[in-house]
């Protein structure tokens, strides 16, 4: 959550910490690669080089490898970063990770939650449930320390021979030619050159690739400072997201409390803009503040950091043959879990497109839709997180007055509760995309073209329980026709998988929820993209309209 933040100061983990245990487990050795023995003129050439083995780079590499691509993945460190960074992973991210084979490990370790509460002073104003309905494989959110997520992703990478993960490989130079880039990479054995058809920069908020393409960006810098403390304690608080405006233990500012695995709690306190970071970060100054919040002193610090943040994005996510994803391309404030989750959405959006372009079965223009779709999503995330931040830190007396009015009205009105903005949590964007075919039938509901698929229970036979997202993975995580039986099935275009609901050989809509969530009638069909987004939908498709929708979705017209 704070990978996008400017860390002003850090205190090392204190006392007995699971972080240091995780560090030793997550230490990786540098190994010399044969590519390093080649002369510059004879530099090795690879189809894709991903720079940065964080959650985004790792997930992208796995997705590409599962689609059959060979990937070189470079990271400048030799271990997984410790400390307080992303903790909230969304349902959408978990569904992506299910496709990569790591979803269950994440959920098994993570803390599942869907309820958030907002307090003003000592009293609760509002409670929300991010997934109030049944029939989904994955919860609204899990909380999981980023280093666990990365460790599970690295384990998965190590099962895939197609990924060549090189630690302590730091990109220090980039030369772009017409159809490839030449990277200069520094290692403990000295520098070497690599040629890549495509480079994907997942190298974080301080992306060096971004500097190398000359695309540094400006954005809105928020003046308020926030203090993050991860503390270890045995506590009976429920696994909910608690947010306070003007709490009794931290007058005039906001505070957040959230549970992580291993009895670790994330505490986020808004400080005054003129607070001195050197003084604020001292454990002896942090401790009484948190003791007031918790009502006791039985906790140990895992991590303390102070940060400010910016909301900004690159103007273009694609610079020649260098593509930017995650924090390298866009940064938001942490309120809303829109940092890591939006980076993962970048990865799932890019992987199938890059795979098709590398295979030569889609034109390079397909990649432009990555920028179109994901930059619009970045704008949405920036807008949402900026609004949350503005609400927490009003920038004028009148803004403060309006906020005061909202908080006060929330005590007795429904609309006031709904106007309180303590962070609007990440949901998948709906793409206004050149790849989508506009509806021409009439629909009362269901995910429209550009929206992500909705999960629902299905069954292969009576008594069986599975989910639509699982059926999508079984079908091969490729273009898939989700069709609702109507006697004669439509012959799908080549390479398109089929999930049939109902009929003689179809899956059972056991709970009736697939039909409801997709506004389905017999004959209804949805064309799903390999990232699980809806490309087109029809009441009674003919082969010709399916062919046209598929061609559009793969960037052919």
């Amino acid at each position, binding site marked *: 959550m704070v990978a996008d933040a400017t860390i002003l100061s850090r205190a090392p983990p204190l006392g007995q910490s699971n972080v240091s245990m995780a560090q030793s487990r997550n230490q990786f050795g540098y190994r010399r690669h044969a590519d390093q023995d080649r002369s510059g003129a004879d530099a090795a050439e690879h189809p894709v080089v991903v720079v940065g083995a964080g959650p985004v780079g790792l997930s992208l590499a796995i997705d590409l490898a599962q689609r059959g691509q060979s990937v070189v993945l470079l990271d400048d460190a030799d271990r997984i970063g410790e400390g307080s960074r992303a903790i909230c992973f969304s349902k959408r991210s978990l569904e992506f990770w299910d496709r990569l084979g790591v979803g269950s490990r994440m959920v098994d370790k993570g803390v599942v939650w869907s309820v958030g509460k907002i307090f003003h002073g000592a009293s609760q104003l509002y409670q929300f449930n991010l997934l109030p309905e049944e029939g989904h494989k994955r919860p609204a959110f899990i909380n999981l320390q980023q280093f666990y997520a990365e460790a599970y992703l690295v384990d998965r990478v190590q099962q895939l021979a197609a990924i060549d993960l090189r630690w302590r490989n730091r990109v220090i130079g980039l030369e772009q030619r017409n159809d490839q880039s030449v990277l200069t990479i520094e290692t403990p054995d000295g520098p070497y050159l690599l040629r890549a058809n495509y480079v994907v920069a997942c190298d974080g908020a301080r992306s060096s690739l971004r500097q190398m393409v000359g695309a540094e960006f400006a954005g809105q810098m928020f003046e308020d400072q926030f203090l993050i403390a991860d503390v270890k304690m045995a506590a009976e608080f429920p696994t909910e997201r608690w947010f306070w405006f003007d709490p009794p233990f931290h007058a005039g500012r906001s505070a957040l409390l959230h549970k992580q695995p291993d009895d670790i709690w994330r505490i986020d306190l808004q400080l005054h803009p003129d607070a001195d970071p050197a003084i604020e970060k001292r454990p002896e100054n942090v401790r009484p503040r948190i003791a007031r919040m918790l009502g006791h002193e039985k906790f140990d610090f895992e991590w303390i950091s102070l940060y400010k943040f910016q909301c900004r994005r690159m103007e273009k996510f694609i610079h020649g043959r260098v593509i930017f994803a995650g924090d390298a391309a866009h940064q938001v404030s942490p309120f809303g879990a829109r940092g890591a989750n939006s980076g993962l959405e970048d990865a799932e959006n890019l992987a199938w497109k890059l795979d098709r372009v590398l295979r030569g079965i889609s034109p390079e223009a397909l990649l432009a839709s990555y920028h179109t779709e994901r930059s619009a999503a970045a704008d949405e995330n920036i807008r949402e997180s900026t609004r949350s931040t503005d609400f927490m830190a009003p920038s004028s007396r*009148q803004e403060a*007055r*309006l906020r*005061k*009015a*909202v908080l*006060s*009205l929330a005590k007795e*009105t429904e*609309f*006031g509760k709904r*106007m309180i903005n303590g962070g609007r949590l990440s949901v998948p964007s709906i793409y206004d995309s050149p790849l989508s075919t506009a509806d021409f039938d009439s629909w009362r509901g269901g995910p429209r073209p550009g929206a992500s698929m909705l999960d629902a229970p299905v069954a292969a036979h009576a008594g069986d329980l599975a989910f639509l997202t699982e059926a999508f993975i079984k079908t091969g995580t490729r273009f898939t026709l989700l069709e609702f039986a109507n006697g004669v099935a439509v012959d799908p275009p080549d390479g398109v998988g089929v999930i049939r609901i109902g009929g003689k050989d179809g899956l059972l809509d056991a709970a009736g929820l697939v039909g409801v969530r997709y506004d389905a009638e017999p004959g209804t069909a949805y064309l799903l993209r390999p990232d699980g987004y809806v490309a087109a939908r029809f009441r009674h498709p003919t082969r010709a309209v399916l062919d046209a929708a598929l061609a559009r979705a793969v960037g052919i017209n």
Partner: protein
Amino acid sequence: MALSTSSNFAKPDDAFRAIVEAHRGLSDAQSADLDAALVLILANHIGDLEVLREAIALAQRRMVDASQQQQQQQQQAQKDLN
């Protein structure tokens, strides 16, 4: 235009009076608090973003008018001096 600017109250003076009286005896800061709450309550009652935006634009034109008027007055004062 989604915003209605025709006269909607049978007795407009009563409506104006009701708002004025709500502010009687309040300090400027209290009045500003009252207005902030009132604007939010009324905006929610309208429940139409287009109407709200038009209302904001209509109100904002007062600011423009006021600053133009001020400028004209300053220019006039300058002329008078000359």
